C-alpha cells in the first residue's frame, strides 16, 4: 500500500495513542493555540487559513478562510461557531473516527476558529446516534477546560471560548448548515432560504460559521506548519491538503484513508483499498462523494480525487465517501435504495423535493418490481429536471443525482426491467405496495 504523509490520522495511528489530553499534548497538541495567543491576530489566522487553500470537507468545498472573512468584524452581539459533526451522508464515516480517536485535535481547531472569527461559543452538533463520540468529546472538553484550553480566559489570554456538545436525534438534513442551526435552536431541522447566509445571520440570527469536523481538525496543523506547507500538499492550487476518503462497498479493505487530494480513484480503490472484494468481479460503478454524488463507472477510474477533476467528470467530491460496486450489482436497485434514503430524509419543506422524492421512489420501486412502463424513463428524467435547482437546499439536487446518473450510464438496465414487465406478470405478493 502506498504511504502518504498523514496529517489528521497521524497521531491516532501511533501505537498506544488514546486520544487523551496527555497523549495529544505529547504529540505537539495545543501548540498552535499557544502560538496564536502569543501574538497572531485573528485576521492573520484567517489569512493563514485563506492562503492554505483549505476548502470545506463537509460537502460543498467552500474555501474555509473566505467563509470566515464574511463574518462581520464589528458585530456588537455574540458570534458562534458550529462544528458540523452530523455525518449522515451515506458512505461517510470519517468524522466519527476523528472525534472518537483524537477529540482534542478537533477541539483545538475549534478554539482557534473561535479566536479567528471572534466567537465566544462553539457548538459541536453531533448526530444523535454517535453516543460514544459525544461521550468522548464531553470528556475531552472537560479535560481541556481543566487545562485552561477551553472556557473563560483561555491560557490566561483573555480569550473566551466555550465549547459544548449538542446531540441531534436522527435527521440527515440537519447536516445542511441552516437546518443544523434550526435544529440547534430546538426546532424542526428545516433549512432556511438563503440569503441571508449564516455568516451574517446564523444561530439566533447572529453571525455564525459552520464547518465540518475534518475541516476544523486541519486548522491546528495549518497554523503550526504554515499555509505554504499545506498549500503544497495535494492538487494545488484548488485542492490543497489531504482528504480522508471513506471507502465502502465491494472492496477488499474498506475504511478511512487519508491521502493527498489528486490521487486517482484507481489508486484509492486498488492500491489503498486492495481492489475488488472478489477478484473475479470487475468494478461496475462508483459513488464518488457520498450518496448525493452522481455515479461514476469504471471508465472514471483515472479521474483524480480533487474538487475540480471530479466536478469536471460530472459528479462531486462531496463528503469523501467512495462506494464501490462490482459487476452484477443492479444499478436500478442501487438508485432505488438511495431514493429510499432520500424519501425518508427529505425534510418536506420544498414541494419539488418532498413530492418528487415520493414520486421518484414509487416509480423506481415499480420498475424494480417489473411493473415499469415505457414512458417511465423519460418521465423520471423530466421529474428530476423539475426538482433540480428549484429547492431551498442542495438536497433537491442530491436526490436526483443517483437517478440521473444511473440512467445516463445504465439506461439499458432500466429498459431491461421494463421489458420484463411486459412479458412477466409478477405474482400478487411480489408487487411492493408503497407505504408512505
Amino acid at each position, binding site marked *: 500500500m502506498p504511504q502518504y504523509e498523514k496529517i489528521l490520522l497521524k497521531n*491516532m*495511528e*501511533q*501505537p498506544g*495513542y488514546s*486520544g487523551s489530553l496527555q497523549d495529544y499534548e505529547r504529540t505537539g497538541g495545543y501548540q498552535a493555540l499557544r502560538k496564536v495567543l502569543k501574538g497572531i491576530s485573528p485576521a492573520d489566522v484567517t489569512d493563514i487559513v485563506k492562503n492554505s487553500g483549505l476548502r470545506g470537507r463537509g460537502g460543498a468545498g467552500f474555501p474555509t478562510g473566505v467563509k470566515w472573512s464574511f463574518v462581520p468584524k464589528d458585530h456588537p452581539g*455574540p458570534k458562534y461557531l458550529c462544528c458540523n459533526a452530523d*455525518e*449522515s*451522508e*451515506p*458512505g*461517510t*464515516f470519517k*468524522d*466519527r*473516527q476523528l472525534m*472518537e*480517536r483524537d477529540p482534542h485535535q478537533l477541539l483545538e481547531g475549534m478554539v482557534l476558529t473561535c479566536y479567528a472569527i471572534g466567537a465566544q461559543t462553539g457548538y459541536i452538533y453531533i*448526530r*444523535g*446516534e*454517535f*453516543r*460514544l463520540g459525544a461521550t468522548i468529546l464531553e470528556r475531552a472538553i472537560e479535560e481541556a477546560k481543566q487545562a485552561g484550553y477551553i472556557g473563560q480566559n483561555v491560557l490566561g489570554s483573555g480569550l473566551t471560548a*466555550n465549547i*459544548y456538545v*449538542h*446531540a*441531534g*436525534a*436522527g*435527521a*440527515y438534513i440537519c447536516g445542511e448548515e441552516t437546518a443544523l442551526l434550526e*435544529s440547534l*435552536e*430546538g*426546532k*424542526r431541522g428545516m433549512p432556511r432560504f438563503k440569503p441571508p447566509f449564516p455568516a451574517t445571520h446564523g444561530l*439566533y440570527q447572529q453571525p455564525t460559521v459552520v464547518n465540518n469536523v475534518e475541516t476544523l481538525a486541519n486548522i491546528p496543523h495549518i497554523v503550526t506548519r504554515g499555509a505554504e506547507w499545506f498549500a503544497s500538499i495535494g492538487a494545488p492550487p484548488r485542492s490543497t491538503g489531504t482528504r480522508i476518503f*471513506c*471507502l*465502502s462497498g*465491494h472492496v477488499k*479493505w*474498506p*475504511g*478511512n484513508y487519508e491521502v493527498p487530494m489528486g490521487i486517482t480513484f484507481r489508486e484509492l480503490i486498488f492500491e489503498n483499498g486492495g481492489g475488488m472484494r472478489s477478484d473475479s468481479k470487475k468494478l461496475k460503478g462508483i*459513488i464518488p462523494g457520498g*450518496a448525493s454524488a452522481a455515479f461514476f463507472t469504471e471508465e472514471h477510474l483515472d479521474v483524480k480525487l480533487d474538487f475540480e477533476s471530479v466536478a469536471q467528470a460530472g459528479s462531486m467530491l462531496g463528503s469523501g465517501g467512495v*462506494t464501490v*460496486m462490482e459487476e452484477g*450489482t443492479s444499478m436500478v436497485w*442501487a438508485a432505488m*435504495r*438511495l431514493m*429510499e*434514503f432520500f424519501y*425518508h*430524509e427529505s425534510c418536506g419543506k420544498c414541494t419539488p423535493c418532498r413530492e418528487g422524492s415520493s414520486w421518484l421512489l414509487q416509480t423506481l420501486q415499480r420498475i424494480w418490481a417489473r411493473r415499469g412502463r415505457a414512458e417511465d424513463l423519460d418521465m423520471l428524467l423530466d421529474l428530476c429536471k423539475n426538482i433540480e435547482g428549484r429547492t431551498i437546499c442542495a438536497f433537491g439536487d442530491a436526490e436526483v443525482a443517483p437517478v440521473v446518473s444511473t440512467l445516463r450510464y445504465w439506461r439499458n438496465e432500466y429498459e431491461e426491467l421494463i421489458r420484463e414487465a411486459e412479458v412477466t406478470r409478477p405474482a400478487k405478493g411480489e408487487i411492493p405496495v408503497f407505504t408512505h
Partner: protein
Amino acid sequence: MLLEKHQELITELLSRYPVKRSALLPLLNLAQREEGYVSEAAMKEIAKILDLTPPQVYETATFYTMLNLKPIGKFHIQICKSIMCGLVGSDDLIQWLQNRLGIRVGQTTGDRLFTLSAVECLGSCGTAPMMQINDDYYEQLTAEKVGRVLEDLRREGTSPLKSGPFMFPQPAGSR
C-alpha cells in the same frame, strides 16, 4: 419527573444556550434515556421547563427519527438498510433477524425485550453491515455474530462485541 431527578444536569444544559428552546433536543434525548421513549408527560414537562407550548415540543419531537413516541422493547435493534450496508448483505441479516426474533421490522418481541427497526445509514459503511442497539454500535456483522450479541444481551444486558472508539482500517501494529 425529569426536573426533580435531574435538576443539576438540566440547569447545566440550560446554561449552555442563550435561548432556552435550544435545550429541547438535549431534554428530549434525556427523557428518552430515562424511560426508553418520550412520553407525553415528559413532553409537557419539557414544554414547561422551556416556556414552550406542548405542540412546539411535539412538532420538534416528531421530526427526529431517533425519538420514540411510543414505548419500545428494552433493546432497540436498529439495523442499517442503506445501500452501503445493502451491498454487503444487510438485507439477508434483516431477514435473519426477523426469523430469529419472530417479529417483523417495526415490531417488538412478545417479551418486550427487542424492537427491530431497519434504518438509514448510521455512518459505519466501512464496517458494514452494522447495527446499533441502544447506545452501542455493532459492526462487521455476520449472522453468527448477531446471534451472539442477542444472546449476550439476553443474558448480561450488554455485549463485549460492541464497538469501541472507531478506527478502520486498523493500522498495522496499533493495538
